Each structure stands twice: as structure tokens, then as C-alpha cells.
């Protein structure tokens, strides 16, 4: 087994745990997590059946966290997948083809990059209406630029190597050179970036929900934090429990991304 390191194991285990919770949420906490289960503001560990306690309306925070995991992970992974795909396509075309196409694609990247991502997300949600799809789209169109830049730089440096000349001399097509020979070599920085984009997407989704721009029909960690905001003095745990969930999942994804980079490099491990 290749070395993942302690951080890698912790990160991967936590990500796996969150994924399992997200899948199992409907069985663990059947019914609507927004339903009242007991009296309001039961503190955590007061009632063994309600480990994270209840909020102002008597809703089970643990059920909210479990169901909120579904939204956070769905948005995080879907947005990151879309952003990475756009970034890899734009970056490889620019880096491999060079010339005018490179200039055009990179100016487009510059333009998108100058728009603050969160403001763009807010604007898109305001125009298209709140919904998970809109949030994913908004995060994807604002966070592919970093990937595009890194992929372009890596591809154009690989393009200059003798490896590409050797492939061309043997008559290999451009598509195969790019996809089979070059891109596997730049998987490592892209995986790191992907983990960052997933983490950022989860944060942006939380922030949008916190501000009330999330999907109103789904429970979300950001909305739960917003819920607890008014109770910070009386019952700080109402905001702290979903807040901690956000922190833990983001740190776990970063650790896992870091470890995967190391594990996927054949020159190490």
C-alpha cells in the first residue's frame, strides 16, 4: 500500500463517512428533517435520542446535519466535476494548440477571473431563481479558471518535451498525444485543485444558503447556521453544530486531496 500518511487516512475516512451518511440519511432519519421531534432547544447529549439536540422549533439537528450532507456533497462534487471539466478542456486546448486559440481562451479566462465568484453566484441565483441546479451552475462557471490556467501551463510545458516529438515522429494523433500521453501526467495538480474546488463549492453553497439564496425546499448546513445566528447567546450549539460539519468536511476533503496526489505519483510511494 502506498503511503497516504496519517492526514490522508483521516481525511479519506472522514470523506467516506460523510458520503455514507449522505447515502444513509433517508434510512437513518426517515421523514422530513424539518419536522418537529421534541421540545425546542434541547442541548446536545441531554436526550440520548437527540445527540445534537434540537433547534428553536424543536427540529432534530442530527437529522438536519445528515440530510444537509446530501446537499453539501452533491453541490460540492457536481460543481467541482463541472468546473474541472471546463477547466481541463479550456486549458488543454489553449496549451496544446497555442497561438490565437490560446490567446482567445486565456483572455476569456482572465475575464471570468476578474468577476468575483461569489458575486457571480449571487447574481446567477438572483436571475435564475434558487435551486440546487442553479447553485451548481453558478459555482461551476465561476471556479474553472484556476484549473484552466494550471492545465494550460502544464500542457504547454509538456508539449515542448521530446516525448511529444517522439509521439509525433511515430505518427500518433494529436488527441492521443494529449489524452493518453500528456494529461495523465498532470492529473496530480488537477486532483489537488479539484479537492480545493469541492471545498470551496461547499463553502459557497453554505454561504448562499446562509444568505437565504439556497434551495428553500432542501435543508442545508448554511441555512442551519443562519437559523442559529439569532440564538448565539442562548444556544450557541444551534449554529456551531452545522458550522462544525462544514469545517470538518472541508478539512477532510483537503487532506484527502493532498494524500491522493501523493499516492497517484508513480515516482513516490
Amino acid at each position, binding site marked *: 500500500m502506498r503511503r497516504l500518511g496519517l492526514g490522508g487516512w483521516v481525511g479519506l475516512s472522514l470523506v467516506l463517512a460523510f458520503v455514507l451518511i449522505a447515502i444513509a440519511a433517508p434510512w437513518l432519519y426517515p421523514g422530513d428533517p424539518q419536522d418537529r421531534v421534541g421540545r425546542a432547544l434541547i442541548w446536545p447529549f441531554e436526550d440520548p435520542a437527540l445527540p445534537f439536540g434540537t433547534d428553536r422549533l424543536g427540529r432534530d439537528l442530527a437529522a438536519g446535519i445528515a440530510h444537509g450532507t446530501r446537499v453539501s456533497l452533491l453541490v460540492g462534487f457536481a460543481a467541482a466535476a463541472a468546473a474541472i471539466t471546463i477547466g481541463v478542456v479550456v486549458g488543454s486546448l489553449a496549451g496544446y494548440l497555442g497561438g490565437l486559440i490560446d490567446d482567445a481562451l486565456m483572455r476569456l479566462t482572465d475575464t471570468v477571473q476578474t468577476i468575483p465568484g461569489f458575486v457571480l453566484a449571487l447574481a446567477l441565483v438572483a436571475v435564475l431563481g434558487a435551486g440546487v441546479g442553479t447553485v451548481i451552475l453558478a459555482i461551476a462557471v465561476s471556479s474553472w479558471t484556476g484549473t484552466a490556467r494550471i492545465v494550460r501551463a502544464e500542457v504547454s510545458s509538456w508539449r515542448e*518535451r*521530446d*516525448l511529444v*516529438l*517522439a*509521439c*509525433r*515522429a*511515430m*505518427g*500518433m*494523433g494529436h488527441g*492521443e498525444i494529449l489524452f493518453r*500521453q500528456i494529461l*495523465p*501526467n498532470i492529473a496530480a495538480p488537477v486532483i489537488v485543485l479539484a479537492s480545493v474546488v469541492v471545498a470551496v463549492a461547499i463553502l459557497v453553497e453554505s454561504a448562499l444558503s446562509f444568505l437565504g439564496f439556497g434551495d428553500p425546499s432542501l435543508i442545508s448546513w448554511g441555512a442551519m447556521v443562519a437559523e442559529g445566528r439569532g440564538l448565539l447567546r442562548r444556544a450557541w450549539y444551534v449554529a456551531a453544530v452545522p458550522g462544525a460539519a462544514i469545517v470538518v468536511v472541508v478539512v477532510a476533503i483537503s487532506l484527502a486531496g493532498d494524500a491522493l496526489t501523493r499516492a497517484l505519483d*508513480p*515516482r513516490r510511494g
Partner: protein
Amino acid sequence: MPEPLLRLQGVKKSYPSPAGPVQAVRGVDLTLEAGERLALVGESGCGKSSLARLILRLADVDAGEIWFEGVNIIQMSDRALRPFRPRLQMVFQDPVAALNPRRTVFQAIEDPLRVHQRPDRAATVARLLAEVGLEAGLGQRYPHELSGGQKQRVGLARALALDPALLIADEPVSALDVSVRAQVINLLGAACRNRGLSLLFIGHDLAVVRHLADRIAVMHLGEIVELAPRARFWTGAAHPYAQALLAAVPATTPAEAAAKTPFVLQGDLPSAVAPPAGCSFHTRCPHAEPRCRTIPPPIVQLAADHWARCHLLTPGAGTPSLGSGGPAP
């Protein structure tokens, strides 16, 4: 006279640079017969590697013709060129840069076979590994697990995979430890002999090409300045630049050392952006005369198969001590 395997005619190539176009190749004429081994020598920056890339159509010429197996490959599209690709293969200088760190030795050697849809690839790869002296078990290794010499053997096996007619080796041992250079050179020579392969060996070290080449071409600043069979070159190199390169080869016997004339080049290779007028070597030539600074030197035939590009070999104000003298142009 039958068409040679490879014939270059007036090949020119320049690359843009901030200072102006770099004239990498300035009109090269060269032929290579089937089964012949030709060494192209010259110092770094003289255009040898550029010429190799032009022959492989990895870059396009500005002017001139490149005939391979009777076809001018200059005008061919990438698609039309594809069937010719297997006939012309190359070994690169730095095997680290020429191999994919994420593909195993087996995959690297199989790549050309796969691209051209050859059958029995596993058996062919096994045969190639044996031919270049690598154990079959190395097939599953990655390049970073191999030594420099082993990596270059993989590079050679990959170039031989498609059974080429012409192999271009661009400084194939310069990046290797001195201790393994001879092995790779011998392997290259053996592969050429056994397969009846033509070789264009590009190098800067005459000591390396000494036992490998049938003919030697000396390149200086984008031009071939002397072309001679090996034995003739070793004893009767006519161009002062070729003599300087020869003088830089360490003597192997006391008799050789005694016969050697000390001759060290002064200064660097002139800029290829603004090559010197007249003879491109006049800035460093110890025998330069006034006409060398203004008039481009003629190509002088010294024997049936021996040419040099130098004023001093023609009757005139020159010093006739340099060469045997040739017919006046």
C-alpha cells in the same frame, strides 16, 4: 545513379526570436545511401538538431527539398506522411524527456506498434527488449526505476519497433554517464548492421562517432562545411573548423599524440541571428584572409567523395599548405 534513401537539397530553416530570425539551417545539401552510417558533427547551436527535426517533419522547412525513398516529403500532409513515419525514426538526446514517466517500458515500446496497428505486439516488444539487451522483466517498470543507459535502450527499442529504414540519433549518448556510452554506441552500431539500417548520427564529439560512421559531415552555423569518408576525414580533414574539432579529440596512442598539432578554437560560435559575412567561420579561423570576410567560400571537391567549403583550398592569395588543393571553380 539510383535515388539515395535520403536526399536534402537547399534546406533552410529559421526561427523567430526577439533579436530577429535565427538562421538555424542555412542551405544544406546532403545524401544518405541505404545502409550507410553518416555522422553529423558540430558544436551546440550549429543547427544539427534542427536539421533532424526537419527530416522527421517535426518542423517545416522554409525552403528546400527533402526526398525520402524517392518522395519529396516536404509537401505531404500529416495524413499522407503517416505511412512513411515508420520508415523514419529517431532516438532522442535525453531519454528522461523522451519517455513518458507514467507509461511502463512495455507500454512505451508498444506505443508505436499500437499506433500503426501491428499484430503480435507483446511478442514484438519481447523481441525488441532482448535486442537492446534489457531483461524481459523490466517491461513492467516505469522509466524512473531505470538507469540512464537502460532508459536510452528503451528509447532505441521504441525507435526500432516499427522496423525503420533510417534511424536518426540526436546526441543519443550525451546525457549518459561516460561508463555506459560505449555500450549504447555499440548497441546502435549492432542494430544498424543487423538490420541493414541507415543511420544519421548527430553528435559534437568526434571520439564518439569515430567507430560508428562511414562518412562524416561537419556542420558550422547552419551549413555543412566538410563532408568526407571516415578514414579520409581522420587523416586529411581540410576545413580549419574540422581540423579544430579533430584536434579536440584526445589521442589514443603516443604516435597519434606526436602527430597532433595543437589547435584550440578561440571565441564562441557566432550569432545565428546575424551570421558573419563571407565565410561564417572567419571570426574564429586562424588562417582567415581578407576575402574570407567578404566572399562566401565555394564548395571545393578534394576527392571523389570529399568536399569542403573553404577559400583556402582554392588557388588565390591563400596558403596552399592546408589541403591538397582542388580544381579551380
